């Protein structure tokens, strides 16, 4: 055993390819460690035991890769070298041989994983995010390395050895590696990992099952640590007990059990199956038609094509008739199927999505590409060396038309890719049927070919070309893996930023029912054509013999490809702006250094806005013309004004007009020096004309998404503003130090002196858009007309609003209704009609409840507008009189799906109540710690009360319990704040704990008293009264609540106390 082990280890270290692999691990690990932002929370130290274990669990998964590579080489070493008969005729014992070989496989795989982990942590300590650390403790590292890296490697190597030894089939070992990876993907989905908890939370039961059976142990790890506090995460290693212990012990036992089975049962040599050849009539047949004579040969183009067809046929028979191909197809179906299932079901908090063709296509594009790459790399290697491996190459290569084989291999790969793609499409369609969403858009499915099949076909050609050029089996394979990682996977996106070179990558973007893949299609097509041209040139150049290269046909072809590359290349690059994050940081720093003094200098306030916005959705462009009325509300003279324009805007015209002078502005940030001071209460005006357009090659901004259909812009953010913008500061403390910036502008403390005066404005906005579209802004629609084949809309606010407005434009269907003197309007994408009636009903209900309990609704219109998913980051957002909803989150959810959650009720309740609570015309909390309580907590409360009204207390309690779970599972990752000092980023406190506390409050003192406090609070602090802070509300509570509850109220809002499920039913 020792001999075999040592021999294997030695021979590994004699190969320079192995050193290259080690070098690669070191390089990738170090760079990965330096750049990866693996942190789960700012409060958890980077080298805390929790964080280290967390990273180790993930890094230990690379063992699947290492184990598979080494298993495929080591387990088949004798068979590949045809050395088996010699070796096994020596007195070596089966047990010794198998154990020795296994030990070598395990050792080499573990060495690679260990190296990666160590280098990763070293890289991390040199990293950009080197902040937040505690002292170094070796055992924090050793413990997870043993529990994850060692045991997981033991598991993967024993599974792969088992497969290898029992089947003697190398491809099955690769397929098993792929399956292990898929098991990991599925386990991750159900693991309760903090990375997945936000996007796809799973039920407790699913997490419990995952904790037991996940063979890589991270589900058990997350399960065991889910309720840990920040302190525990920073100081404790997960204890080897409970489920975690059972899981690790189980995996250990299974692994050793598998090994034991191999030693007992596996045979050393492939048993050649004795096939009894049927003695058919064939043996009596006699052929006596003709005698042998020479046959005519031809070598025209069509003859070469026939040769290529014959090669392709043989390749395809070889591939399609094999069991591993079937297994690979099944593995792909399973993996993509799980993703589709997850995308539709969306965890426990969100109801089912409709299984639309777009959703299926997005899922396929984002997941199939990567998995198919693995298959391509494998099959390219297999096909390229097939003739050599069979030792048939001398015969094949001495025929006249053998050179067509290269293209036959490419064609075969292409057909494999196409077959897999079609299979994925079938699966998508099957899911649509399964989930009863019969609107099957086959044209949408065609995007699968554009975004995955075509790049993969190019990849196939390039991979074969590398094999051809390198001509060394495993060095070639190694180079291909590196090439593929850099050029075709998301990993490479960080390294290769030039859009031209991304032609092997897929699109990581969701399909929009409103806007499709929008303007990204054209860019993708150019990129693909560029890739095709480059591949064509490379193939011609390296495939043709040098003597033929100078003939006119190749020269012409290369010239044509060159032209193609040049045209598409220039088309792509002319508008390309390279994303240099350092340049962005430097600009932010220089802004802060240059203008921070204006933070304390008096600046004018905008009081009135008259503006027109011309939208050109088809060009992704718009123009804003505006006229501000400014007023010096400061009580001091103003002699210098800092003007800020948004990024990427062209300033056609901007001019400040005072009673004395007209001062033009030309730069994005500019200080205007007044020759004559603007006196207190004196007014001025500001006129401007700015233009914006985005290009798909640079990507779009989520909140400035002017797209062909379903545009949405939080447009007030891009209007010029005055004074220093603290939002523009660099936030990361480490980066601030590097840039030699001092303290950042702090968020105002909850108890800072009150200064809040409302800076509300009146808005008069005229929008024009293309002929088929309807534009929706805030306030009341006053006028609507057509001119020059464009649609015009004039919106005016009937009440003052904050400087915060937005607009959308799309081809809408609309549902309108008048109710209690108000206009209810829902603008939606024509195919998203399912929840419109229900939303309308809930909107009416909400308005009834809020008007009855909090006060009058300040506008005449209640408007909902759907927008495309080119805008991300919210399910819905409230503006004065208008609520915008993204198409793919809640508005178009399948309410009749499995869990019967009425998210539309929640959406209507929550968002509409923001017209009372939040920055929309009535009350605006002062920007300081605790502000989120006065908007989000109140909105959550309203949402819960409406849920109770519509579905009863039990249903509401379910949701309250869910929010309690969110709060309890999140609080362990960050420093806790009491509700009244909640920071804006702590949404698990402002939303979830807020909902729980407000519910408890309503049970304790009664819903009616809570509402009375809210009503009184609003009357006192709404515009134009002074802005409120959190204690103002608590004071109102004390006024309505019995004294005996005051202590409890204090605990709820001002202190941090633990809340458990049993606390929900005390009242």
């Amino acid at each position, binding site marked *: 055993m020792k001999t075999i082990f040592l021999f294997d280890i030695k021979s590994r270290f004699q190969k320079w390819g192995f050193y290259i692999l080690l070098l690669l691990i070191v390089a990738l690990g170090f760079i990965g460690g330096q750049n990866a932002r693996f942190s789960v929370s700012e409060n958890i130290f980077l080298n805390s035991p929790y964080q280290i274990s967390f990273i180790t669990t993930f890094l230990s998964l690379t063992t699947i890769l290492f184990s598979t590579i080494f298993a495929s080489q080591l387990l088949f070493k004798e068979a590949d070298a045809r050395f088996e008969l010699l070796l096994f005729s020596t007195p070596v014992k089966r047990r010794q041989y198998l154990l020795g070989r296994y030990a070598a496989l395990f050792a080499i795989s573990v060495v690679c994983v260990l190296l990666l982990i160590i280098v990763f942590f070293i890289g991390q300590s040199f990293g950009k995010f080197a902040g937040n650390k505690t002292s170094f403790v070796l055992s924090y590292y050793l413990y997870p390395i043993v529990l994850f890296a060692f045991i997981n490697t033991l598991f993967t190597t024993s599974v792969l050895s088992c497969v290898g030894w029992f089947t003697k089939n190398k491809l099955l070992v690769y397929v098993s590696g792929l399956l292990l990876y898929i098991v990991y993907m599925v386990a991750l989905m159900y693991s309760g990992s903090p990375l997945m908890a936000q996007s796809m939370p799973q039920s407790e039961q699913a997490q419990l099952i995952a904790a037991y059976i996940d063979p890589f142990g991270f589900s058990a790890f997350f399960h065991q640590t889910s309720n840990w506090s920040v302190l525990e995460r920073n100081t404790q290693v997960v204890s080897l007990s409970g489920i975690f212990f059972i899981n690790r012990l189980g995996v250990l036992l299974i692994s050793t059990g598998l090994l034991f089975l191999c030693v007992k049962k596996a045979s050393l040599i492939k048993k050649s199956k004795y096939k009894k050849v049927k003695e058919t009539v064939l043996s009596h047949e006699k052929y006596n038609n003709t005698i042998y004579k020479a046959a005519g040969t031809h070598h025209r183009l*069509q003859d070469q094509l026939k040769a290529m067809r014959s090669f392709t046929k043989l390749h395809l028979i070889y591939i399609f008739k094999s069991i591993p191909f079937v297994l690979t197809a099944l593995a792909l179906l399973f993996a993509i199927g799980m993703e589709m299932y997850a995308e539709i079901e969306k965890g426990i908090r969100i109801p089912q999505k409709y299984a639309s063709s777009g959703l299926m296509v997005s899922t396929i594009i984002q997941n199939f590409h990567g998995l198919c790459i693995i298959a391509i790399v494998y099959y390219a290697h297999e096909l390229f060396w097939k003739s050599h491996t069979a030792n*048939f190459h001398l015969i094949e290569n001495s025929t006249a038309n053998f050179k067509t084989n290269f293209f036959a291999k490419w064609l075969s790969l292409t057909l494999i890719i196409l077959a897999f793609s079609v299979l994925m499409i079938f699966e998508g369609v099957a899911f649509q049927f399964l989930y009863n969403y019969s609107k099957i858009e086959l044209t949408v499915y065609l995007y699968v070919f554009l975004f995955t099949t075509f790049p993969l076909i190019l990849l196939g050609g390039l991979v074969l070309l590398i094999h051809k050029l390198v001509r060394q089996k495993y060095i070639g394979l190694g180079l291909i893996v590196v090439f593929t990682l850099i050029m075709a996977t998301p990993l490479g996106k960080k390294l290769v930023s030039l859009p031209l070179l991304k032609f092997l990558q897929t699109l990581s973007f969701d399909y929009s029912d409103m806007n499709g893949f929008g303007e990204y299609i054209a860019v993708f097509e150019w990129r693909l054509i560029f890739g095709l041209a480059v591949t064509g040139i490379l193939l011609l150049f390296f495939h043709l013999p040098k003597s033929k290269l100078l003939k006119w046909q190749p020269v012409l072809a290369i010239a044509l490809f060159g032209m193609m590359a040049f045209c598409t290349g220039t088309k792509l690059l002319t508008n390309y702006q390279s994303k240099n994050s350092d340049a962005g940081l430097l600009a932010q720093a220089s802004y802060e250094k240059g203008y921070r003094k204006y933070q304390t200098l008096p600046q004018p306030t905008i009081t009135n806005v008259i503006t027109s916005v011309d939208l050109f959705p088809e060009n992704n462009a718009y123009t804003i013309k505006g006229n501000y009325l400014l007023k010096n509300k400061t009580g001091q003279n103003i002699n210098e004004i800092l003007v800020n324009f948004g990024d990427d805007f062209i300033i056609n015209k901007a001019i400040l007009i005072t009673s004395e002078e007209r001062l033009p502005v030309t730069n994005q940030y500019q200080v205007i020096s007044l020759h004559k001071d603007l006196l207190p209460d004196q007014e001025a005006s500001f006129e401007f004309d700015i233009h914006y357009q985005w290009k798909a090659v640079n990507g779009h901004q989520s909140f400035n998404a002017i797209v062909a259909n379903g545009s949405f812009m939080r447009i007030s953010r891009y209007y010029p503003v005055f004074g220093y913008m603290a939002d523009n500061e660099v936030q990361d403390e480490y980066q601030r130090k590097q840039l030699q910036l001092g303290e950042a502008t702090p968020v105002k403390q909850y108890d800072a002196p009150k200064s809040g005066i409302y800076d509300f404005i009146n808005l008069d906005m005229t929008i024009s858009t293309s002929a088929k579209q309807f534009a929706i802004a805030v306030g009341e629609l006053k006028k609507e007309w057509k001119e020059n084949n464009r649609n015009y809309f004039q919106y005016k606010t009937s009440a003052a609003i904050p400087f915060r407005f937005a607009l959308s434009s799309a081809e809408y269907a609309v549902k309108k209704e008048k109710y209690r003197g108000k206009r209810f309007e829902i603008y939606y994408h024509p195919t998203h009609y399912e929840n419109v009636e229900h939303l309308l009903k809930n909107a009416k209900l909400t308005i009834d409840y809020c008007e009855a309990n909090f006060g009058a609704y300040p506008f005449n219109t209640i408007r909902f507008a759907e927008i495309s998913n080119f805008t991300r980051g919210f399910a819905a957002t409230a503006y004065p009189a208008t609520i915008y909803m993204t198409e793919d989150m809640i508005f178009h959810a399948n309410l009749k799906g499995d869990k019967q959650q009425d998210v539309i009720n929640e959406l209507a309740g929550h968002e509409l109540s923001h017209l009372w609570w939040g920055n929309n015309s009535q009350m605006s909390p002062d920007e300081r710690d605790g502000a989120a309580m006065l908007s989000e907590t109140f909105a959550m409360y309203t949402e819960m009360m409406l849920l109770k009204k519509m579905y009863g207390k039990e249903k509401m309690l379910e949701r309250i319990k869910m929010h309690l779970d969110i709060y309890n599972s999140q609080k362990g990752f960050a420093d806790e704040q009491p509700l009244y000092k909640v920071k804006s980023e702590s949404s698990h406190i402002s939303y979830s704990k807020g909902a729980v506390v407000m519910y408890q409050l309503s049970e304790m003192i009664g819903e009616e008293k809570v509402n009375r406090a809210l009503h009184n609070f609003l009357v006192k602090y709404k515009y134009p009264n002074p802005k409120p802070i959190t204690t103002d509300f608590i004071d109102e509570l004390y006024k309505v609540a019995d004294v005996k509850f005051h202590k409890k109220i204090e605990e709820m809002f001002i202190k941090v106390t633990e809340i458990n499920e049993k606390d929900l039913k005390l009242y």
Partner: protein
Amino acid sequence: MNSLKIKNLSKTYSNGVKAINNINLEIENGMFGLLGPNGAGKSSLMKIIVGLQSADSGEIIFNDVNVLSNTTYIKKHLGFLPQDFGVYPKISAYNLLNHLAILKGVTNDAERKEQILALLDKVNLFQHRKKEVHTFSGGMRQRFGVAQALLGNPKIVIVDEPTAGLDPEERNRFNSLLSEIGEEIIIILSTHLVEDVRNLCSKMAIMNNGAVLAYGSPADFLRELNGKIWQKEISKKEMETYKSDFNIISSQFISGKMNIHILADNNPENFEPVTPTLEDVYFTTLNQSKA
């Protein structure tokens, strides 16, 4: 008439081994035997001729075309049976021949089918045409190899150690097949079996260490040695003495007794004269080159 002219051909491998050392040969229709011990450079020469390997210098002219710069030209007229070859699994003899025939440019379906069946019949594989070649025995596989070399319209057939591993009966059948077709085309037969060359070839060359040691017709070689080969039965102990005294060209056991052949112009004592065989020619040439 086809012709193959090899002029000043040299090839040195990257590890310094001189595989081909300034070879000059002219070959015309008929069977040409290439004799030489293992490692003499025969296979390298053949691989260079068929375009599977490149040469460092020199020329190979086939029917007035330099095939070193135009490897496709010779491939259009070539049948090649390498020394050692395997086949793809899961493909029947007929289908694999069909594949190779297409690669050789036999694209007329009817003609191709006819030729393949005739060939299968000729190599006695007709009954086995639907079996996977993968499952064939060594002899069957070798016959398959011959069949594939004759596909299409070859003007030059190169066979490398074709009878290795064949039983005597199969070897005979194979040889008669080769001689049958060898009249109209060039057949280069590389082998270390002297007997095959004697039986089949009108021209031959002997190679060693990458160089051609002798080149001519077997009959001429035999005539040259006529009356110069002598044999004697000796005991194994005496070998050393004889080695120093005589020019021993070969020694072999016959019925357990050591039997030596020597080269000498006059009859040495106690030796019997023998009619020279091609084997004597072969060993004489090799020995002379060593000396």
